[in-house]
């Protein structure tokens, strides 16, 4: 399946990080919260941002990169306007999650972990959302959609498209 990665923006405004540094600079264990705050600002973690964080928290860039790539929550590429998280938990699995994911892949024409070329959607899988009673479930942004059938996916996605 072809995947057109959107080109990352070259103009990262690092000044936006200053308030984050001010809040966390002297605190222990700050790296993860700072990365979370930075990702909230930029939507992902461009290399310039990671370098700036390393410098300001006085840790090697390699450590920043190591933490970023360890946790599923951090992203090195820009992300879509709507994040779709397709639950692959046990309860969803036995109630047909793989076919829901199949329908999402087909509709969006991207593989999990990637973003549509128009930056509308990023498709992700998640181990469990915690709505096991209503399986199979997906989350679009913070909205959970429950008791899904593959045939209902198109309508849900259309509701989010611009």
């Amino acid at each position: 399946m072809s995947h057109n990665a959107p080109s990352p923006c070259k103009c990262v405004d690092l000044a936006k990080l200053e308030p984050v540094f001010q809040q966390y600079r002297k605190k222990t264990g700050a790296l993860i919260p700072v990365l979370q705050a930075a990702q909230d600002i930029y939507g992902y973690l461009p290399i310039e941002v990671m370098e700036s964080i390393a410098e300001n928290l006085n840790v090697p860039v390699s450590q920043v990169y190591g933490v970023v790539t360890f946790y599923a929550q951090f992203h090195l590429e820009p992300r879509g306007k709507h994040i779709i998280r397709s639950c692959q938990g046990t309860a969803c699995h036995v109630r047909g999650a793989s076919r829901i994911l199949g329908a999402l892949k087909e509709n969006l024409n991207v593989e999990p972990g990637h973003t549509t070329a128009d930056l509308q959607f990023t498709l992700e899988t998640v181990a469990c959302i915690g709505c096991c009673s209503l399986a199979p479930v997906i989350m679009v942004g913070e909205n959970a959609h429950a008791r899904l059938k593959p045939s209902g996916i198109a309508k849900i996605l259309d509701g989010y498209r611009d």
Partner: protein
Amino acid sequence: MTTALPRLANAAALNDFQKQALPKIAIRHDPKAPPYEGVTHHIMVCFDTGCHASGGGAVALELEKELAAKGLDKKVKVVRTGCHGFCEIGPLVTVYPQDLFYIRVKPEDAAEIVEKTIIGGQPLERLFYKLNENAPAVSKWKDIEFYALQNRITLRNCGHMDPGEIEEYIAGGGYQALAKALGMKSNPEALLNEVKKSGLRGRGGGGFPTGIKWELCRKAAGDKKYVVCNADEGDPGAFMDRSLLEGDPHRVLEGMLIGALVIGADEGYVYVRAEYPGAIRRLRQAISQAEQMGLYGNNILGSGWNCTIHIKEGAGAFVCGEETALLRSIEGERGIPTARPPFPAISGLWGKPTNNNNVETWANIPDIILNGGDWFASRGTEKSKGTKVFALAGKLNHTGLVEVPIGITMRKIIFDIGGGIQNGKQFKAVQIGGPSGGCLPASLLDLPVDYDSLVEAGAMMGSGGLVVVDEDTCMVDLARFFLTFTQSESCGKCTPCREGTTRMLDILNNITQGKGQKGDIELLETLARSIKQAALCGLGQTSPNPILSTLRYFRSEYEAHINDRKCPARSCSALLTFTIDKDKCLGCCACQKVCPVEAIEGDKKEPHVINQDKCIKCGSCEDVCRKAKAINRS
């Protein structure tokens, strides 16, 4: 209730505050209680993620709109509660003082609820629960079997109060345990003894005695100590920690504060999955309210004792549920486990003695302190005391959150509380304990559910996820599913887990794709045993459990895949052939339209045929052929 919260100077002030708060919620317990400040009714709407996904949010809004339109918004309070438990039939609505329980409520029902039940004082029978079509309607939630067979301690408040109002928690006896503990501040040994006497064991899965864990940390040398709440609920199929944090956050906070007091800690962390934004919001709100009231922070209840608790958001790594990995993650590092000893009780967060318990464990503490260890120990079995919360999911009729005394049989949970298997299918197995647990077959349905019996049977209590599967689920595929999960979540530090899970997954992939070979089963067993012994942390050590338990109880399914190239559950698509029954086919062309590879041939009103060379076995045709049911799997 946005009025500023008063700061409580001491335990007596807490008692006074409780007395003042009680009449505000009295109509929920006593139908004859007088209205408080003109409020005659409370409509409780379940606002937990589950009911919310079913449309609970819209129901609450619509109810408020209808009430405002009728000028009743001052007389009737709509309360957004945490998880009520019976998620399957949500959104759930309870009306007080009549104590009427409405299920599967839609926004369109709001007008009728206001008109008939609130104004007319009449029940709305069409929204009552019925076990089946011919069963009598049940008007009160307590009378429904799903609830009647439970024993709710930690879940007592969930679904029955507004988790955003500290006043409601205090009215129900909240923070009394903390006040009692602070009164015994000079004698923490006595508090510790109650926890030890209770026999409470870690609810996160391992089942280590909580009192002993506390004692180790209390006795450890160090001027600075920490308490940690593990809310990194990563086991797919378990959601009790989320529900507790969303539905009764103060209970968890109160438990942690008491633990900190006993251990001698003055700082703590709650490590919550970032996938649980609602739980994080609730917890933040709870901490802020408790601080305003002097129940948290500096000089708690005028005792001179201080304690601060921080919230750390996880960043999406299952291994962080392992306590040493979790501590590394709080420190801002990659969440990689470290070898024990030293145990965190001796050297934990930043090298300081640290006591880490799971959400449900902390939530049990206030009741143990208030009612005593003996009270708690009167429930459960000889070696596993108290109650346990289970998340029922999978192919059950009644899915949701239940709390039962430990030692109850699996049969009672699945068939009496859980209502048996969906669509009249056969029970095949129950998966308990998530990716670290095991699958138990029908022959073990009468096994008492406790820590030790489960381990003996090849499973484990785990965090309490119960996923029930029926005859249509392939057990080899289920084991493969869990291995896919643990393999991708393996942190990669130790070779047995990193390489071992990859090899086991390769073999399982081959078997489910019809490429299994003689000797695969034996190789799986050898690998599984080595990994169990050699892996560094709990994730690796328990990762072979799903394979070993399915091999123990469902070996014939593995053999059928390998020797006969057949999937007995007719689920592994590579081993299936889809065909169309000529006599049943109506020639409607529906399957032709959905087939993604144009493998279905045949003219309108003529029987269709599947071209086996093209068919990718996706099952789309089977889904659309609902009327004729002409598609066969073999």
